[in-house]
C-alpha cells in the first residue's frame, strides 16, 4: 500500500524530515507518535501535497505509484484522505455541497459517472446517522461555527462518504471529549478492512485505546526512531519521548 523511503523534506530551507522510511501494508493500521515539532504534521502534508513542503530526497508511493509528483486532488482521487488536525471553515458552502463537489470531482478524475442527487442524499443520511450527526447540520456552511469536536466528527463524516483507501488521521483526538472520541473511533474502525490502510498521528496514547494499531512508530529528529507493537505506545505514555530527543 504506502511505501515511504528515505524521505527528506524541507520547509523554507529548514530540514524537517531527514530520511524517513516507512511501509504500511494494506489492511494495517500504523500509529506515529512523537514529540511536538518532530515532523508529524509535515509528514501528513507532504503525503497530501500541500505547497511549501519541498522534497529534497526520497520517495513515497501508493501501490507502487509515485505520489509526490501528483496534484493534491489527484492523490485524493487515488484514495488518499487526510483528516486535518485543524479542519478549515468554509463560509458560504453547505457541508453537503462541499462533499458532493469533492465526490464528483474524484469520480470524474477516475473516469466514473457523477453520483445522482437521490443516491448522494441516501448515502449522506445513512452515514450521518451512523456517526450521530444531525442531518440539519450538513445543510449549514461547512465547519462554520462548529465546535472542535463537531469539526472532527465532520472530518470522519467526509472520510466515510468519500471512502478513501489510505487514511491519515492527524491528531484526530484533540478537542474531543470521551463520548465524541468513541463516536469518532467507531467511525474510523468501521472503515478498517483488508483493502485499506491507516496512518494515525497522535501525541497521546489515549486515541490508540480506541483505534488499536498494528504497529507503532516513534518519529523523532525527522526519522523513525523506533518501531514496535501496540505495547510501544504504553511504554511511551509511561516514559515520554526524552530518550529519543536525546538520541536525535
Amino acid at each position, binding site marked *: 500500500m504506502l511505501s515511504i523511503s528515505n524521505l527528506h523534506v524541507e520547509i523554507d530551507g529548514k530540514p524537517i524530515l531527514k530520511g524517513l522510511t516507512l511501509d504500511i501494508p494494506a489492511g494495517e493500521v500504523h500509529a506515529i507518535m512523537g514529540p511536538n515539532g518532530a515532523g508529524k504534521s509535515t509528514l501528513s502534508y507532504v503525503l*497530501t*501535497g*500541500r*505547497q511549501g513542503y519541498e522534497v529534497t530526497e526520497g520517495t513515497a508511493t501508493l501501490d507502487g505509484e509515485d505520489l509526490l509528483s501528483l*496534484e*493534491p*486532488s489527484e492523490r*485524493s*482521487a487515488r484514495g488518499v*484522505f*487526510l483528516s*486535518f488536525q485543524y*479542519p*478549515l*471553515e*468554509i*463560509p*458560504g*458552502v453547505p457541508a453537503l455541497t*462541499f*462533499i458532493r*463537489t*469533492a*465526490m464528483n*470531482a*474524484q469520480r470524474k*478524475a477516475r473516469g466514473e459517472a457523477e453520483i445522482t442527487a437521490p443516491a448522494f442524499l441516501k448515502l449522506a443520511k445513512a452515514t450521518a446517522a451512523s456517526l450521530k450527526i444531525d442531518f440539519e447540520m450538513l445543510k449549514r*456552511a461547512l465547519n462554520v461555527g462548529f465546535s472542535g469536536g463537531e469539526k472532527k466528527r465532520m472530518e470522519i463524516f*467526509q472520510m466515510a462518504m*468519500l471512502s478513501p483507501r489510505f487514511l491519515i488521521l492527524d491528531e484526530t483526538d484533540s478537542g474531543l471529549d470521551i463520548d465524541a472520541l468513541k463516536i469518532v473511533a467507531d467511525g474510523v474502525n468501521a472503515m478498517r478492512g483488508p483493502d485499506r490502510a491507516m496512518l494515525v498521528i497522535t501525541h497521546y496514547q489515549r486515541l490508540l485505546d480506541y483505534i488499536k494499531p498494528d504497529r507503532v512508530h516513534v518519529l523523532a529528529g525527522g526519522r523513525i526512531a523506533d518501531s514496535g507493537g501496540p505495547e510501544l505506545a504504553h511504554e511511551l505514555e509511561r516514559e515520554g519521548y526524552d530518550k529519543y530527543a536525546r538520541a536525535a
Partner: protein
Amino acid sequence: MSLASALKTSDVTLLPGKRDEDWKWTDLRGLLRVLPPPSQPFMGEAPVGPFAALANLPIHVVNASDPVVVRSASAAPYVVALHFAALGGGSHSATAQIEVAEGANLILLESYEGDDADYVANLDLKITVGANGRLERIVLAADGANGVSVSTADVTLGIGAQLVQTVLTDGARRQRIETRVAHPGAGASVRLDGAYLLAGKRHADLTTVVEHQGLDGTTSQLTKGVVRDQSRGVFQGRILVAKGADRTDARMGHHALILSDKAEIDAKPELLIFADDVQCAHGNTIGAFDEDALFYAQQRGMPEDVARALLTEAFVGEVIDRIEHDGAREVAKTWAAKGLGL
C-alpha cells in the same frame, strides 16, 4: 460638479475628478479630455434586459430619450423592470423618477447595458418611498469595457419605510453607482448590499451615503468584491448619524478578494456619528485567497480551478442569497457564475 452638468454644458471642467474628495478614486476629469458628441437615436429592436420577463411592467430605454416616471400605489408587490442601454457610442444623460406611495410595495429591477463602443452615460434617479412603503431595488450593471457610466440614486424614505437594495456590477472602463439615502429614522430600515466582480482593466465604484436624521432607524450594509487582472474596485460607504438620531442601529461590511498582483481595491468606510445613543459597527477586509481553505478543498478531491471557483462563488454568494425576489436572485446567481468563469 457632476457628469450630468458637464454633459449638459459640454464643459469638461465640470467633471468630477481626483481633486474632489468623494471622486478621488474615480477620476472622470482626468479620463475624459473631451466629451463625445450626443448619442444618436437608436433604430432597431431595443434590448429589454435580463429582468423583463419577471416584471409586471417592463420598461426599456436606449441612449436616454425621455424621462422615465414610475408611480406605484399597489400594496401587493408590483414588479417594474427598468433597462437602460447605451448603444452606438456618444454621450447621454437619463433621468428617472420613482415614487412608491404610502404603504405601497414596489420591486424595481434595474439593469444597465452597453456595447463595445466608447460611450458616456449618466443616469439620475429620484426615488421616494412613502410612509410604511417598501422598495426592493436590484441593480445589475453590464456596461461595455469601453463605457464610462455613472448612476446616482437619491432616495428619500418616509417614516416606517423600507429600502432593500442590491447592486451587482462587473464594472466598465470607468463606472460609479452611487446611492444616497435620506433616512428619517422613525422605524424606517435600509439594507444596502453590493457585489462587484471585476476583470481586465475594468473599474467599478460603489458609493453609498446614508444620513440618519431621526430616532430609531436601522441600516445594514454588506458589499463584497472580487478583482482580477488589472481591475480596480472602489467602495465608499458613509453612514452619518445626525445629532438627536438616537437608537440608530447601523452596520456596514465590505469584504474583498484580490486575485492578482496588479488588481486594486480602494475602500473608505466612514461612520460619522453626532448622536449619543447609537449602535454602529463596520468591518472591512481585503485580502488574497485563503490558501489553507484552497488546500483543504483540493485534499478532498477538487482540482484547483474547481476549488477556487467554489470558494469564490461562496464568497460572493452571501450577498446574492440576501436578494429576496426569487427571480432576481436566480438572475444574480447566473450573473455571478458567468462573472467568475464557472
